[in-house]
């Protein structure tokens, strides 16, 4: 609970009207896409780095937690106020300050919705590639905090590859600039930019981001290739890349997902796996690449090849990919949504391993995702009403992590650790590595006020899993 002196300080920091104690706001800022609510004591709506700094200084003085929140679309609980305190919403910090067509850079506030930046860049012939599935409702600030990825990572990389520099408020309230604003290089001191990206809002609050943009590709082409078995799909994916083509997307869909989506839209599918491939670039190159991809697919026993060139055809192919999630929801109400990553050469081993786990734990597992970068979304589907099914699902999740690690992968590719995976990080990180990380956290946030209870095993993670 906040003392009256702390409340007074908060109101001074951001103005009376930007501190809310209403029950309505507490409810609406208590959740993210994990749907596991924790009520905050209050919500603040700062508009500048100075506002944010004042809030954090008050937090240190009075000892209350501050939890930064963008779009509230995370899957690992990064923006949940698990220990109460103050949710700091970046919704009022939503300006695209500048798009620099000479230097191919953008300056944005953290509350900008990522798709809005993409639209604005596109209007000026430029391109901001990172495209998490939540691109239309997640924010740049949240994307940076979680180092969001997306299908385009195979060719274009993830959020961290586009952050040139940051204005960050450190947990103590100091406002610093990391990296550069418009320069593509810079090696002065430690790379605090990279440290901040993916730190899940535990090391600082981004108040401005300086981002790299690319020229907008002239053309795009989408193809859907279906196979009878996953080996053929995986071989095709490998062969495409081996041929020297880096597709802008190379998405994998497993048989369970294909069957589920076919039933959902009222068709039938006997395919064991499918690849959704997109190439982009100069018109002539895209044309050449698509012919080559068709040839490689045929050589690897593809039984169906659909090539979309008009906007409507592309939309139809993507609507299939987008229908996977809702169709899975029809099978079972609860989806334990994990996002392990393995070297892309291990895709077949991963999917075969998932089949074994599904059998061993007697739970339905559907997987789909980014074949191009080995980041596969593993959905363990359970119904809490069936006795023991949720528990078996959680066991299966642990098996999935162990499998990914045994294949040289990681337990999370793009969702972050938050509270959901906190109990498992020791499966991947050594004790010394965890100690190095907690030492950094302590150095920057001596009072532990910024987004406590995240990443490292603690009470919140245990509560979530119990």
């Amino acid at each position, binding site marked *: 609970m906040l003392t009256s002196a702390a409340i007074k300080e908060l109101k001074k920091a951001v103005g009376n009207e930007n501190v809310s104690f209403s*029950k309505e706001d507490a*409810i609406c800022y208590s959740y993210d896409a994990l749907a596991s609510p924790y009520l905050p004591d209050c919500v603040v709506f700062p508009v500048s780095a100075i506002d944010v700094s004042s809030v954090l200084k008050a937090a240190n003085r009075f000892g209350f937690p501050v939890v930064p929140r963008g779009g509230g679309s995370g899957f690992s609980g990064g923006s949940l106020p698990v220990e109460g305190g103050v949710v700091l919403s970046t919704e009022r910090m939503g300006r695209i300050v500048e798009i620099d067509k000479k230097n191919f850079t953008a300056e944005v506030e953290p509350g900008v919705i990522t798709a809005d930046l993409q639209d604005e860049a596109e209007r000026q012939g430029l391109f901001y590639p990172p495209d998490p599935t939540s691109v239309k409702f*997640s924010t740049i600030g949240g994307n940076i905090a979680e180092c969001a990825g997306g299908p385009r990572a195979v060719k274009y990389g993830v959020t961290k590859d586009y952050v040139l520099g940051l204005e960050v408020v450190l947990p103590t309230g100091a406002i610093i600039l990391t990296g550069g604003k418009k320069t593509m290089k810079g090696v002065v001191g430690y790379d605090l930019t990279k440290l901040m990206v993916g730190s899940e809002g535990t090391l600082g609050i981004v108040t401005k981001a300086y981002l790299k943009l690319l020229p907008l590709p002239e053309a795009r082409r989408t193809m859907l290739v279906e196979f009878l078995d996953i080996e053929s799909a995986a071989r095709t994916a490998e062969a495409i890349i081996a041929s020297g083509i880096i597709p802008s997307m190379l998405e994998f869909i497993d048989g369970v997902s294909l069957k589920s989506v076919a039933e959902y839209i009222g068709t039938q599918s006997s395919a064991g796996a499918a690849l959704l491939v997109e190439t982009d670039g100069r018109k002539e190159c895209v044309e050449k690449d698509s012919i080559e991809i068709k040839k490689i697919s045929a050589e690897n026993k593809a039984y169906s090849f659909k090539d979309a060139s008009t906007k409507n055809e592309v939309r139809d192919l993507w609507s299939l990919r987008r229908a996977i999630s809702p169709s899975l929801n029809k099978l079972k109400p609860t989806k334990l949504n994990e996002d392990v990553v393995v070297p892309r050469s291990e895709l077949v081993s991963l999917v075969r391993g998932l089949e074994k786990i599904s059998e061993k734990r007697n739970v339905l597992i559907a997987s789909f995702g980014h074949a191009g970068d080995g980041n596969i979304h593993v959905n363990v589907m359970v119904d809490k009403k069936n006795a023991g099914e949720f528990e078996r699902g959680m066991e299966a999740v642990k098996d999935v992590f162990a499998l990914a690690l045994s294949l040289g992968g990681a337990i999370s590719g793009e969702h972050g650790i938050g509270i959901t995976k906190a109990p498992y990080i020791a499966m991947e990180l050594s004790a010394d590595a965890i100690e190095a990380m907690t030492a950094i956290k302590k150095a920057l946030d001596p009072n532990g006020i910024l987004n406590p209870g995240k990443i490292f095993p603690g009470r919140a993670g245990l509560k979530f899993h119990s």
Partner: protein
Amino acid sequence: MKDSIKKSLLEEAAKCVRCGACKSACPTFDVLRREPSSPRGRVSLIEARLRGVEGMKDAYVKHIKECTLCGSCLSACPKGVNVPQLVLGARCSQSEDELIPSVFPLAAKNLLGAEGLAPALVKTVMKAAGKLQGVFLKGAGSGEGLVTRFSLPFVGDGRLLPELPEVFFLDRPDISAMKDVKKGATSRVGFFVGCGINYILPSIGEATIKALDSSGATVAVPAEQVCCGMPALSSGDVQAAKELALRNIEAFEKLELDYIVTSCATCGHALKSVFKDVLSGEGIEIRQKAEAFASKVRDITELLTKELNYEAKGERKEGTVTYHDPCHLKKYQGITEEPRELLAKSGHVFKGMKNPCKCCGLGGGLIFTNYELSMKIAEKKAMSIKASGADIVATACPGCIIQLKDACHRYGVDAKVVHVVELL
């Protein structure tokens, strides 16, 4: 609230997994950019209230009022959560306690809710408004509509209001003469006029009858028809919506019609779906009547293209035209191609606009409860119209027309706003 209703609302709310996808589709979140003004926020608030969470007051009512019921969230939601239904449920449950006067201005609610029950009262009010409009309002300069001469309470400065007709559509001698269809006529069509056309935009009614005539249909306009009940329902008055539905079904069923047509997207949704919904708790006989009635209902654009094979004379006309999809037509009736097909036959050159199906901001009673927010939403639509470069913006809903006229006037967009049938 009845336990069974509460249970079904709670089940609907429980489907929400809080993913946030709906935020990208919601017109109120688009302009306000705060979580409680998003569909996900509304679901969370309604669910909390249904569960008996205490301590919610004015802000709850405000956020429940903000929803335009446009249904944009329906297609964005991977779980198929019916947020508009939850919001309506929340509003209806409000009617039972002290919060209702603040959900809708009391006068507007009584007027709208009781429209069909006391048509004489509404007529008197609308007539008085017609007589007084010259005192308070003056021509807008653009030749269309009226603006306030001075600041008026409940109206707002510079607001463009439609000029009310001297005689309401249903009262005109030529229209009241059309109370039945000749025996043995083919394509027997009953015209459901609706309040927007009857009281405010009768030219749409004229154009509708003309288009039906030229397509070989025989048209009747039953005099006993009343309001479709949507304003009452949006404000949470289910009882009024029920009684209006019954009176309308009675007015049309005796004419042995092939089709019941409306030129209002909102009325169309009410006639096709809402009547059945609000009467679903009644006896089998009433439910069958509602079903039979609903099966005959068509939007005018749907009837002309799909059933009557409307043919145009094919002459080229001056002026380029763009199209705005009314929420009640696209999101609730799935009609998008039919009006565009008619526009292609109208002889005007078509120019698409960006986000044609984005809500205009009028619906769900927002125009009455929060004019400022309603206009903020409409501003985006006005800018899309401007960017399209079209001279005319056509749509298929009198509500949208009133809103788009006001928005174009306010934000300096030089485009004529009409119903699709007015271009035929």
